């Protein structure tokens, strides 16, 4: 009987096919600008997390009193703007590709949950600005959240609670979902074009025009 470490190692090795975790070759159809937005979104998220960590060192009011703090705060804000803009363009691209095809439903769902989780994380960021804007937003948000019954344990009028949700719980949730999303993308590969015939799938053995077959081979 093998140990749990061997079992876990085998499970991890099976999750993503060999060579697909950090590939250096992609199918020909990936050579399009629309495929750039997913990785731009990921790059933005890395900047968001990095600047957020620096802001955590300086403290929640650091940006009010320090030029450097203001710069880091602005970098945090604008990387979030880019994060959402590139994520939505990535979403549009994947929607029109019907990217949930070929057993990729879970990839689509984790992407959708990551989007919703990111929106929640951004909202708690607005509540952590320690200024009149955050007070105004909290005043507007409390009625809606009380109306749906979650105000008792998610109190937008409590800046300390909102800050902790913003810097721990929600980033952890988004981070785990994003990692799962990327692992699923690598596990199943990038979705082929709708009219492509994929090797190994039904219809692949039929006579296929050479350009279509070329599109479905790697390299």
């Amino acid at each position, binding site marked *: 009987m093998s140990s749990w470490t061997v079992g876990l190692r085998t499970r991890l090795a099976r999750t993503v096919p060999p060579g697909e975790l950090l590939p250096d*070759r992609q199918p*020909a159809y*990936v*050579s*399009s*600008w*629309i495929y750039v937005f997913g990785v731009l979104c990921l790059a933005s998220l890395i900047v968001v997390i990095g600047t957020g960590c620096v802001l955590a060192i300086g403290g929640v009011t650091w940006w009010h009193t320090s030029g450097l703090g203001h710069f880091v705060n602005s970098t945090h804000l604008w990387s979030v703007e880019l994060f959402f803009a590139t994520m939505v*363009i990535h979403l*549009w*691209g994947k929607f029109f590709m019907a990217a949930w095809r070929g057993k990729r439903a879970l990839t689509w769902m984790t992407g959708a949950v990551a989007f919703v989780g990111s929106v929640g994380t951004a909202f708690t960021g607005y509540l952590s600005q320690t200024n009149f804007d955050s007070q105004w937003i909290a005043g507007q948000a409390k009625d809606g959240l009380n109306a749906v019954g979650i105000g008792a344990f998610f109190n937008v009028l409590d800046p300390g609670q909102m800050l902790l949700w913003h810097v721990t719980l929600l980033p952890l949730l988004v981070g785990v979902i994003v990692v799962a999303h990327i692992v699923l993308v690598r596990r199943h590969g990038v979705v082929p074009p709708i009219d492509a015939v994929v090797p190994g799938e039904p219809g692949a053995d039929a006579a296929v025009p050479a350009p279509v077959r070329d599109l479905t081979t790697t390299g």
Partner: protein
Amino acid sequence: MNGSYVDWGVVHISVANLVVIGVMVALFLLAVLVPFHGPGSSDGDAS
């Protein structure tokens, strides 16, 4: 300072947000239509 807003039926949106959405749509269309000449493009990869 009050911002500029566009009112169209039930739609009420700031010009700034409308411009951002317009830029995103333009980027999406460009990404679909403009050819990508990267290292993995079909002309550059002979293998």
